[in-house]
């Protein structure tokens, strides 16, 4: 009835959490979110999350960096102000290319890494001074929290959670502005 009603189940072990998540999903309950102090291998698959597309973006960002480095070095070293370094003033990008390979590599990595981090922040809606959404500070230490939507199935869900090894189960009313 009330979709703002959720249950917070607390776990103290990542393996227990992983099997609990699998079981909860098997019983067709909807898991809103899982809060963990560290990334858990295989949790994304157990939760049925879509595969991340950040690797595709990383490749594209890398290609952009690669292109930028080529244009940049061509402008700096060939067109604008050709320099005689090591007796190689050939005025040709291609002939001086081996000297630019380290720069091409670095720019590729630089673009891929920084743009990936920025993309991640934007997608996760993170910015400086943002209030933490974390419902329980213990999940920044050594506990794991699963947030499950409630649909008139409180009793059954609670007994299920108890069976999966939750150490604490709580009803929580989610505020609207938390969304």
């Amino acid at each position, binding site marked *: 009835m009330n979709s703002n009603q959720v249950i917070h189940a607390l776990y103290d072990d990542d393996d227990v959490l992983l099997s609990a998540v699998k079981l909860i999903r098997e019983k067709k309950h909807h898991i809103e979110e899982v809060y963990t102090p560290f990334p858990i291998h295989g949790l994304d698959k157990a939760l049925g999350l879509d595969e991340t597309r950040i*690797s595709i973006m990383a*490749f594209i960002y890398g290609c952009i960096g690669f292109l930028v480095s080529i244009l940049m070095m061509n402008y700096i070293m060939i067109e604008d102000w050709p320099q005689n370094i*090591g*007796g*190689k003033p050939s005025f040709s990008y291609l002939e001086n290319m*081996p*000297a630019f*390979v*380290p720069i091409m590599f670095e720019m590729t990595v630089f673009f891929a890494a920084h743009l990936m981090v920025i993309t991640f922040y934007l997608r996760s809606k993170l910015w400086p001074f943002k209030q933490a959404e974390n419902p329980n500070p213990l999940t920044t230490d050594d506990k794991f929290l699963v947030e499950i939507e409630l649909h008139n199935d409180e009793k059954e869900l609670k007994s299920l959670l108890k069976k999966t090894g939750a150490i604490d189960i709580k009803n929580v009313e989610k505020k609207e502005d938390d969304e």
Partner: protein
Amino acid sequence: MYYFTNKLKTFSISLMVVGFLGLTYGFLTAPDNVEEAAMMTADAHHGESHGEGQGEGHGDTHTDHDKEYISDFHEAGHNESASAQGAEHGGDHQGEHLLHQLQNKPWAALYVAAFFFMMIALGTLAFYAINRAAQAGWSPALYRVMEGITGYLLPGALIVFVILVLSGMHLNHLFIWMDPEVVAHDKLIRGKVGFLNVPGFLFRALIYIGGWATYRYFSRKFSLAQDQANDISNHKKNFRISAGFLVFFIVTESMMSWDWVMSIDPHWFSTLFGWYVFASMFVSGVTAIALITIYLKSKGYLEKVNDSHIHDLGKFMFGISVFWTYLWFSQFMLIWYSNIPEEVTYFITRIEDYNLPFFGMLVMNFIFPLLILMNSDYKRINYFIVMAGIVILLGHYIDVFNMIMPSAVGDQWFIGLAEIGGFLFFLGLFIFIVFKEISKAPLHAAGDPFMGESERFHY
């Protein structure tokens, strides 16, 4: 237990026969004297055009003072310009030079292929020893495949050794420093005689091969004994000898690459050559493991090997290909940038006379695996691993080709019957020995203490 099928046996033997015919053709058509050599190149119109371009290209870098200490005797490639300049009064000299290049051709074809397949086995042995020493949990399911491939090491290395002995007996001119006539006129080589002399060279070769084969013998023995054992003492022994072997290996591998490859061009040297050859053999070894594993799996063996094992081998193929490129480029850029005549001549011959194999190899060994194997999912698809693997193996064959041919045959190279024959012959021999070795023991190393972890391994 794998059964070495008659079909595969026939296939490998027919490869050997075809390869043998190709090699024989190469040896029979090699010229016997200067006139024949001159006729052959006149027919082909191949050497002429190349020779001219080269003379121009090097004329300014190699001035007369080079002649004093660089003999233009059998030396290939770079100091050819010197002989081209003096061709008017030294026509015979150049003719003899050409003759030696053409006579070297079938030998070099034989040597490149023999070395390449020995290198695969040696790279696999290093990979195996690293897994043993690191007590890797993922790989025990593949140990028997690796042990099968390293079974080729001893025969393969002995064949290379025989070729080296024949060179020492002056049956060919692959290693010009073995010729006392050359050494007498060459100040640079004279200074290296303490290291580059035939008895020392062969003695070192025996030490390398002996050390590798001894490790491989005991490691295989302990590995098989572990299958029946009740405790893990064999596993522990294997761990210890593997760690020791890796120390021995990295020293001998490096020296082997100076001896067997770099000394073909005795004036030139590179300080990271050992690493460079190592990267080449390591990626070839991992690729061979992946290809043979996929083959055996397609025949219904190795049921414990899953996608994740192939995925990990794919990661190694990808990573070590990039590592190889890093070393290749480190070697190339420093020499290209400093532009010191004695050093840069190595790359000038390769870029001018070997343009296609030199840059083609970069595409095959770097760009192709980089793009194909970058995606995580593709590393789990056998088709992609096989495709990338074949290109990587051929690319590293060309890599060895580029290391040996320019100094042995100069601009007279050609991937013809002898070269393809050499490759096919050793491919057949490799398949025959490797699958014979695999069929000797159960494919499942049941006693390995990490076997359970390897079976459950998933990414």
